[in-house]
């Protein structure tokens, strides 16, 4: 085995030992962890954010309300209970425009709007991203495949107090007449943190 496999195997055994003892001692149950994982697979994930953005794209008045009072606008839609739950208690949407590109970062750790985007992906948690995005965002975005010209203002949002931001990306050309469901299908988690644009699949 390589050193890397040892490290991962050890962690896998260690966490299983811990979970096992916590169950034996009555702290959690044999199903607690599975239920938490399932919650983020079924109820709270980026599929919620995609529906919100798709609605904002087809309904400019809704978009306005979303930017002005994000929780109230989210509450208008038919989601499972919990859109103002853990890590979504105080969310705020910011919109990309032809003149402004927004990028969300949490330089101190990994604050992320769970109900709308689910759990933070590795790139967002990566200390290298956190270090660089706040100082050279265009360079980082270029490495991610997104070229933001100097004529476009970049706004980097460092989320470190109690507000959780997400981005309403721009609607791509070629989607005129699409249904909200069709639109939601092409909206990625990365685009809702400003790390990518939404593109129409070829």
């Amino acid at each position, binding site marked *: 085995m390589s050193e890397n496999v040892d490290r991962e*195997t050890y962690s*896998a*055994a*260690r*966490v*299983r*030992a*811990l*979970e*096992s*003892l*916590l*169950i034996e*001692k*009555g*702290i*959690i*149950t*044999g*199903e*607690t*962890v*599975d*239920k*938490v*994982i399932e919650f983020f697979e079924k109820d709270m994930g980026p599929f919620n954010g995609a529906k919100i953005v798709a609605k904002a794209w087809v309904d400019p008045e809704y978009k306005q309300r979303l930017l002005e009072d994000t929780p109230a606008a989210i509450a208008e839609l038919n989601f*499972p209970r*919990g859109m*103002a*739950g*853990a890590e*979504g*208690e*105080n969310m705020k949407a910011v919109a990309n425009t032809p003149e402004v590109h927004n990028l969300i970062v949490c*330089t*101190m750790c990994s604050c992320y709007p769970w109900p709308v985007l*689910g759990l933070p*992906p*590795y790139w967002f948690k*990566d200390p290298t991203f*956190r*270090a660089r*995005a*706040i*100082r050279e*965002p265009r360079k980082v975005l270029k490495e*991610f495949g997104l070229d933001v010209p100097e004529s*476009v*203002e*970049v*706004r*980097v*949002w*460092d989320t*470190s*107090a*109690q*507000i959780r931001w997400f981005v309403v990306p721009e609607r791509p050309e070629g989607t005129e007449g699409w249904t909200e469901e069709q639109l939601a299908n092409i909206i990625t*988690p*990365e685009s809702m943190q400003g790390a990518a644009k939404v593109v129409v699949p070829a």
Partner: protein
Amino acid sequence: MKLQHYIGGLEGLEPSSFEKRVFVQPWEQRIFGIHVAMMALSNHLEAVKNVPTTFKSFWTWGHLRTGAEGLNPFDYFKYRYYEKWLGGISGFFIDSGYVSKEELDAKTTEYLENLEAPLPDGGEPAIDEQVIEYLRVGDSPKCEVEVQPKFKVGDVVTVKNPPPVAHCKLPGYLRTKQGVVDEVYDGAYNYYFPTGDGVGEPMPIYNVKFNSHEIWDNLTEPNTEIYVQIFEAYLEDPA
């Protein structure tokens, strides 16, 4: 300074990895689930009073972060995100007397011999109900108290330079910098516990705008603005 607070702006790094997965190893999901359960069963939550768990501690993001910020910074970067969680959370359960290091080590050895060995089953369903209820309800820091914000939109503010504490909510790169209040968030926000540098009691939070060049001088890019949400305790009038 603690390097953990000063990650924003570090130079000389490699290109960023665009790894889109949330978990890169299956075991990472398990420690994530354990942390969520601990937050959901924390004794500061009113809803937990009648839940039949043997967990009797105060556990929040603030506690997890205090552990990560307390690491020797050269160790901090040796571990992946969920490796730090696993170390911090295991250490907490040992230090608090819920499990002994010996039994955790022995159990780890058992699972190393057979990772597929089953977990115990059973337990009180009311525990799981509270965990999911916590996820749906959250633990909002927003408080129903009247506060008069010291600053208003358009005010120029200076970021204070308080002595470092065990857990800090102020990104290091902002210390002593000047910005402009862009938004005063509605209401007042507390933190799970007093951090020792002013944060804790309900207070306003501001969205403050900084020009990238004000912070990084010429080591940044043109046409770039930085917006940061900052607790009032970290801000003062310019000298």
